């Protein structure tokens, strides 16, 4: 394994043992508490361990997802694992589901009406599907008059996208349409000065 001193070796082995029996990602906080070591040290050892697995070329990985560490099969071995699991092909999300999820992820907490105004369609059915799959949940109530339900994303959502936290989402600024798109839209919806041959 890695080059480590004695305390570190024992701690790393304990981390391996615990994460191996866990059924969901194990938070570094909990590991620190159980192993009576500083959280910073746990974080460092987990990161080193994860890198050591990759370097050794194992068929599994230890990754940080949804705020904790877990073992998972390496993506490169997916064809074999899928053959083994039979039902390993996971359901792909529809475009509507992905768009709604994108809006909730970046704008949370927000209401159904706010989602509708961005997508231009009632998100009712899609929201229900996302809730049923556990990607989205009711996180609060709007303080205003109707006390609308406000939605946010879940740990399952982070796991689905393989993200550790919402901070790992790419910055929204990089998706704002470029000048070419803006120009095209402006031109498409221009009001004045019809070109003489614009027809209609």
């Amino acid at each position, binding site marked *: 394994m890695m080059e480590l001193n004695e305390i570190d070796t024992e701690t790393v082995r304990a981390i391996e043992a615990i994460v191996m029996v866990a059924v969901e990602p194990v938070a570094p906080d909990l590991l620190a508490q159980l192993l009576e070591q500083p959280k910073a040290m746990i974080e460092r050892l987990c990161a080193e361990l994860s890198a050591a697995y990759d370097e050794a070329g194992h068929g599994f990985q230890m990754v940080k997802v949804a705020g904790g560490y877990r073992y998972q099969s390496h993506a490169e071995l997916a064809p074999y694992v899928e053959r083994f699991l039979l039902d390993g092909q996971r359901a792909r999300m529809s475009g509507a589901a992905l768009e709604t999820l994108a809006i909730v992820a970046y704008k949370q907490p927000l209401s159904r009406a706010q989602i509708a105004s961005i997508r231009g369609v009632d998100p009712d059915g899609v929201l229900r599907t996302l809730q049923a799959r556990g990607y989205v949940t009711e996180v609060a109530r709007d303080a205003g008059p109707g006390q609308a339900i406000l939605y946010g994303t879940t740990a399952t959502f982070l796991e689905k996208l393989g993200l550790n936290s919402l901070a790992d989402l*790419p910055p929204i600024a990089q998706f704002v349409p470029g000048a070419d798109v803006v120009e095209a839209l402006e031109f498409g919806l221009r009001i004045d000065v019809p070109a003489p041959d614009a027809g209609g």
Partner: protein
Amino acid sequence: MAFAVATPVFEGPFDLLLHLILREQVDIYEVSLTRIVDEYLAEIERLQVVDLDVATEFLLIAATLVELKARRLLPGRDDVDLDDELALWEERDLLLARLLECKTFKDVAGVFSRLADDADRSFPRTAGPDERFDDVMPDLLEGTTVKRVQAAYVRAVTPKPVERIDLFHVAPVRASVADAVAELVDELPRVGRITFRRLTSGLVERLEVIVRFLALLELFKQGVIELDQVEQFGEIDVLWTGGLEPVAAGSIAIDDYEG
């Protein structure tokens, strides 16, 4: 149950509009608002076989588009109210902003899709502790009441609503805009002036109302009626200006909606 229905291609009005405008992006100066509006309306017509709520949402945007188009067709009018003019610009800017926001999240959705695809290639370990730890695990039934078991059973055997296209509320009405145009050119010359509300008072299905509205827009485009709405959400007055001679429906050229 209300159901998110997408047209075969488009998820919503912004989706459609973005497509219509941006597909010409290679040479944006080829983009014609007229063509966009026509194709947009054609798409709405196709929607009549799908979901009413969605059709309504498409229609709201259609109203703005038609207004933009109407303004463009009459560039030199002097009697344009400055307030109306400003309101139209505001509406256009709002539509533009919403399109940009929609486009932003569509692009994010693409990234999410790739992230999820990547993540789906790794499978988490879920085996849990082996039997050596059976005695360590706390009693899972601690605090569970018989009532909870009973409720769990009922939950388990109650069929989950299967998500499928709910055709119940999609009326078997196949009213087309062309048919509605035919009815209107028969009816309107006889009544001369009528409110939209009265014109549609005999219709039961919202879909039929929407189709009539589209037919009116078509006749407006053809210049045989005038539409007037004094205040927002107020009555819409329909005035026949096509003369007293009976007009054959076939002579009203319906745009080629094949786009």
